């Protein structure tokens, strides 16, 4: 019997023909989705009576034209990237983390509380400490629904959404109460729900003078690389992916399924929490301040991060690229508003369209891949259509 271990055996059977359809669908599916969304966006700009070309020109210029724009984009991308990486991890473990918003807020609060508690520590200690506190805050806020899911079978969609609602109120309470700024006289600011100016020693240093580019950008990229290694090069990542694909098989293999599930959501929360800390200490105002809504603090990064991760194929490395692009979209949206008067909501709309196109085109990708990648060998050789997006997007390490 012929042994089929050698992969060259395939090559000898099929003539290497270029399959453009497959290439288009496997390599250009995501860019095509983006283009599709931008085209619909162009229609919307036109509906507002503006010129889409000049609108997009302003958008791209505002996002990527020059050092300042690039640095703004990079800074805007940081929370998206961190949340996105967290999403990569939790979705790989088959846990849908919709709680990024709350986890960001809790990370921000924990980091802020730390800076308020020990403001005099030197920067070399305080900066890592507040970042770790952010990680911790998010970790806890992710671990709770993770634990509930793993041990009490409480659906994580339910609990993460509910915890978002809890987080926003907790944030309002803390910022208007125990953590409120008591250093400025009441007459100056009234009772704005904000902390005092946080210790300078906790500020994230700017790494390129004259821009916004701060240490958080480097940290976020490093975290994404680490997450990649974690998922594909470590035993923990292996278990996490195994649990995500089949709880049953992981259980039979003796893996700690419940612990892994809890940890996956907690880790996802930790990354979001880190994003929260960076939002506070890498921001311009260097305080934590709210307008009473979660998005007022997070800028919806908890949701946008899902889009970013998805666009990055749930692969932390591609998520870096994707976060940068979406950061640019958000930053450029303001420039577009300036140039055309089309509200920045256009960017949100485009984002939604991107998601819809990506998940829809995935169907065609799946088919293209199955048709093209597994050429007929001999009758009776088994192949199976590959299932869903999450699985499809297994990066080849």
């Amino acid at each position: 019997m012929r042994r089929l271990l050698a992969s060259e055996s395939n090559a000898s059977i099929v003539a290497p023909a270029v399959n453009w359809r497959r290439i288009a669908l496997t390599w250009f599916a995501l860019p095509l989705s983006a283009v599709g969304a931008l085209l619909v966006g162009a229609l919307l700009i036109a509906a507002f009576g503006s010129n889409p070309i000049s609108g997009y020109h302003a958008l791209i210029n505002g996002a990527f034209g020059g050092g300042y724009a690039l640095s703004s984009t990079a800074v805007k991308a940081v929370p998206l990237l961190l949340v996105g990486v967290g999403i990569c991890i939790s979705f790989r473990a088959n846990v849908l983390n919709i709680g990024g918003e709350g986890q960001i807020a809790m990370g921000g609060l924990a980091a802020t509380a730390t800076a308020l508690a020990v403001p005099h520590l030197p920067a070399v200690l305080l900066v890592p400490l507040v970042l770790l506190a952010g990680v911790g805050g998010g970790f806890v806020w992710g671990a709770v629904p993770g634990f509930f899911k793993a041990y009490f079978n409480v659906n994580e969609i339910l609990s993460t959404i509910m915890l978002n609602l809890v987080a926003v109120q907790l944030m309002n309470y803390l910022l208007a109460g125990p953590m409120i700024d008591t250093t400025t006289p009441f007459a100056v600011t009234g009772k704005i729900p904000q902390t005092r100016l946080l210790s300078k020693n906790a500020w994230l240093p700017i790494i390129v003078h004259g821009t916004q580019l701060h240490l958080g950008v480097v940290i976020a990229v490093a975290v994404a690389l680490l997450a990649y290694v974690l998922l594909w090069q470590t035993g923990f990542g292996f278990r996490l992916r195994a649990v995500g694909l089949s709880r049953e098989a992981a259980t039979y293999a003796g893996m700690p399924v419940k612990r892994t599930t809890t940890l996956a959501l907690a880790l996802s929360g930790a990354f979001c929490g880190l994003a929260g800390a960076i939002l506070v200490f890498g921001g311009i105002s260097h305080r934590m301040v709210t307008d009473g809504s979660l998005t007022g603090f997070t800028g919806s990064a908890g949701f946008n991060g899902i889009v970013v991760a998805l666009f990055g194929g749930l692969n932390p490395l591609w998520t870096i690229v994707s976060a940068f692009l979406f950061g640019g979209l958000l930053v450029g949206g303001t420039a577009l508003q300036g140039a055309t008067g089309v509200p920045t909501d256009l960017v949100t709309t485009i984002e939604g369209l991107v998601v819809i196109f990506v998940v829809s085109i995935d169907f065609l990708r799946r088919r293209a891949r199955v048709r093209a990648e597994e050429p007929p060998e001999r009758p009776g050789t088994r192949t199976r259509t590959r299932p869903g997006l999450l699985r499809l997007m297994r990066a080849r390490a």
Partner: protein
Amino acid sequence: KTGAPPTTNPAAPAATGGSTSSTAGHPFKVAIVAPSAVNDLAFTESMVSAVQSLKQKYDLQIAISDNQYVVSDAANLIRQYASEGYNLVIAHGSQYGSTVEQLAPQFPKVSFAWGTAGSTFNQPNIFAYQAASNEGGYVQGYMAGLMSKSKTIGVIGPINVGDAQLYVDGFKQGVLAADKTANVKVTFTGSFSDVGLMATAAKAYIANGADVLTGSSQSVVGAIGVAKAAKAAWFGTQWDQSSLAPTAVVSCQVYNWVPVLDQIFTAIKGGKLGGATYTIGLGNGGEKIQFNPGYPLSPSVKAAGEKEITAIVDGTLTPAQ
């Protein structure tokens, strides 16, 4: 999220890095960063339309970024406008204070205006502006106290801060001055933007027997609808809201930031980039009580209200802050 596109195009090649002091021949560049929509019938609209009304007078080039309720995004924009050579950046929201405080030293040639608030952080290029909204609040509260039959009056604020807080305090004081036995209830929804919560709070008051309501912030539109549906009376602030509920709105305290802006522009032309705090009030024409002609207000109540206005304007009455 601008309804009305900005008057001029800020993306057009701007004087970057050059001198920012306004020399004759160059338009004076003003940027407004505001937390809600330009057409919110309240806080943001009051400032934007005031600036636009001065466009000719001062040869202004205006850029507007509205709906910047995410503070970190707003901060980024404020910084960007400052770095693009705008002469004046108006940070229209108390929550932007810290940002302005941080940025002002980095852009010493740019003038920042921050409100509503009472402090310039002792910096030479920050103006602060505020509204003595307690004055109009007092007047309207006084009328409310006289009008209410159920003796139950509901007050809804967004967050306990800035002019909202002043208005609420003044209103409460006015009600009690008119009727010591009245029952004034105050709720803060915790959000500047949540129309639904405001409406819900208004409903709670109605359910508890209130027949007069008032509220501050851009999120009151839903609550006004509730008042209208329940045939309760409504007092507004920041902007004339009569058109929203011609049968329910009694009167509104209307802001007019023009006096403040006049002072700021004059100061800047005179080379002074900040360091002063300006207040609009009933006295300087920055605030006005606009009666809704369509509301059947009893003449005696109206007369009592006008008497209080006169007292405040001529200084015989000063509502406590």
